[in-house]
C-alpha cells in the first residue's frame, strides 16, 4: 500500500479515537457506565491516539519520504 494511504488511515484512526473519547465521556455523563470502565476506555483511546497520530506524523516527515 502506498505510504500516503497509510498516513491517511493513521490520521483517521487518531481522529476516530478522539471522537470515541468524547463519546465514552458523554456515555458516562449519562450514567450508563462506571467510572472504572470510563477510565480504562479513556486510557486505551489515548494509547491508540498517540500511536496513530505519531505514525501519521512520522510518515509526513520529508526525510522518510526521501528514503
Amino acid at each position, binding site marked *: 500500500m502506498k505510504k500516503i494511504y497509510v498516513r491517511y488511515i493513521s490520521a483517521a484512526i487518531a481522529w476516530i479515537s478522539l471522537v470515541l473519547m468524547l463519546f465514552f*465521556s458523554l456515555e*458516562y455523563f449519562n*450514567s450508563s457506565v462506571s467510572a472504572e470502565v470510563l*477510565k480504562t476506555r*479513556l486510557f486505551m483511546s*489515548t494509547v491508540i491516539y498517540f500511536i496513530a*497520530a505519531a505514525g501519521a506524523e512520522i510518515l509526513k516527515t520529508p526525510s522518510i519520504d526521501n528514503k
Partner: protein
Amino acid sequence: MNEYEREPVPEKALLGFKSFLGMYAGEHCAGTELMIGPLFVAAGVSAFSVLGGLLLGNILAVLSWLLLTAPIAVKMRLTLYYQLEKICGRKLVTLYNLANGSMFCFLAGAMVTVSATAIGVWINFPMPGLDDLLPNSFSWCLAVLIIGGAIAIIAAAGYQTVARFANLAAPWMVLVFIIFGLVAFHDLAVVCNFKYEGLDSLWNFANTELWKGGNPLPGQVKFTFWHVTFYAWFCNIAMNVGMADLTVFRFAKKPIYAVATFGGVFLGHFIAWLSASLLYSYQLKLNPADTAILPGPLAYRVCGVTGLICVIVAGWTTANPTIYRAGLAFQAVMPKFSRFKVTFATGMIAAVAGMFPAFAMKLLDFVAIYGMVLMPMGAVIFADFYLLKKLGLKSFYAESAGLSFYWAAAAAWLLTILACYLLVALGVMQIFFVSLPGWFIAVIIYLLLSKLMQKKEVLS
C-alpha cells in the same frame, strides 16, 4: 528556515488564518490552566463572577490583540525585539530580554511543579499544600529536579522534536481538558444528588456547589467579577498589550487574523479553567479539609491514568517552549555561550524555581506581576507608533540618533513599574488591576520624556 529576525517579513512568507488558529488553540491549553481554575474556586468566586468575568475578560483580551498588537505587527512586520531595538537601542533591549527571560523561567518553574504533582500520585511523597511557599520535603524537591532536569535536557537538545510532539498532543489535550469538566460535573452532580429540572435548577446548582462565592479559603484574595475579568484580560498582557506577539502577527496577511486568538483563549482560558475549577470543587465536596491544589491527584481522581498523562504532557509541552524562549532571551545577553548550555542552565533554574510551590500556588499573583513588568514596553511601542509623529517627534529614535540606550523608553518602563508597585504597596489598588493605569502612565512618561530628550538635529 529564515525567521526574518532583522528585516520585515516579505509577502511570500505570510501565513493564512488557520496557522494562527492552530497555534493559539494549542498554546493556551497549558499545564498552568490546571492551577488557575482551582485557584479561582479557592478565591471564592461565584458562578456569575467566573462565567461572566471570563467571558468579558477574554473578549477584552481578543480585542487587545486585534486593536493594539495586530495593526502594528502587520504594518511594520518586525519582531518585538527588532522593533524595540529601533525605539530603545540595543542595550535597553538586552535589559528587557533579561527581565523577559527571568519571567519565562519562573513561569516554566510553575509548569514543572504541575508536572511533578502527577509523579506524586504514583510515588507517595508529601506534596505542597495551598499555603506552602517553600519546598516541604526532600522527596518533593528530588521529584521536581528529576522532572525539571529531563525537561531542561530535552528543551536544550531536542526542542523541535518536542514542539512536534506538542502539536500532535494538542487536540488530545484540549479534549481531555473538556472531559475533565464533563466527568467532574457528573461526579459532583451524583454526590450532590442534583437532578436537572430546567435552567433554574442548573444555575442554582452552579451557585451552591460549583462556584459557591462567599469567603475565599484562608490566605487567598477574594475574587469578584472584576477580578476574574481583569485576570482573564491581563493574564496574556505581555503578549497583546505588551506587544510580544508582534513577532507572531508580523506573518499575518491582515490584522483581522488576530481574531484567531479567540480560539485559544476560549479553549484555554474559558473551558480549561472552568473544567479545572470543577475538578477542585469536586475535591472540596468530597473533603472540605483537602484544600491542596495538586493537578496530578485532581486529574487522576476523575480520569485515571489518562488524567495523569494529560497533566505531565500539558506541563512538559508548555514548559519546553517557555524554557526555550527564556534561553533565547538569555543568550541574547550572553551571546558567547552556546544555545544548548544557556537553554539547559535556564531549564535547571526553572527546575529549582519549580521546587518552590510559591510560583504555582501564588500563580494568580505571579501572572499579574509578570504582565505588569513587561506591559510598559508595549505602551512605549504603541506611543512610538501612533503618537510621536502627531506630536512632531521621531519614531524609532534610538535608530535615528544612533543610541544604544534611549533613556525616555527606559524611564517609561522602570518608572511605570515603580508607580504600579507604589499603587499596590500603598493599597490604592490590587496587583490584578494595576496594569490598566500602568499602561497610561507608561504612555504619558514616554511622550513627555521624548519631548524633552529628542534633539532638534535628529528631528530635522
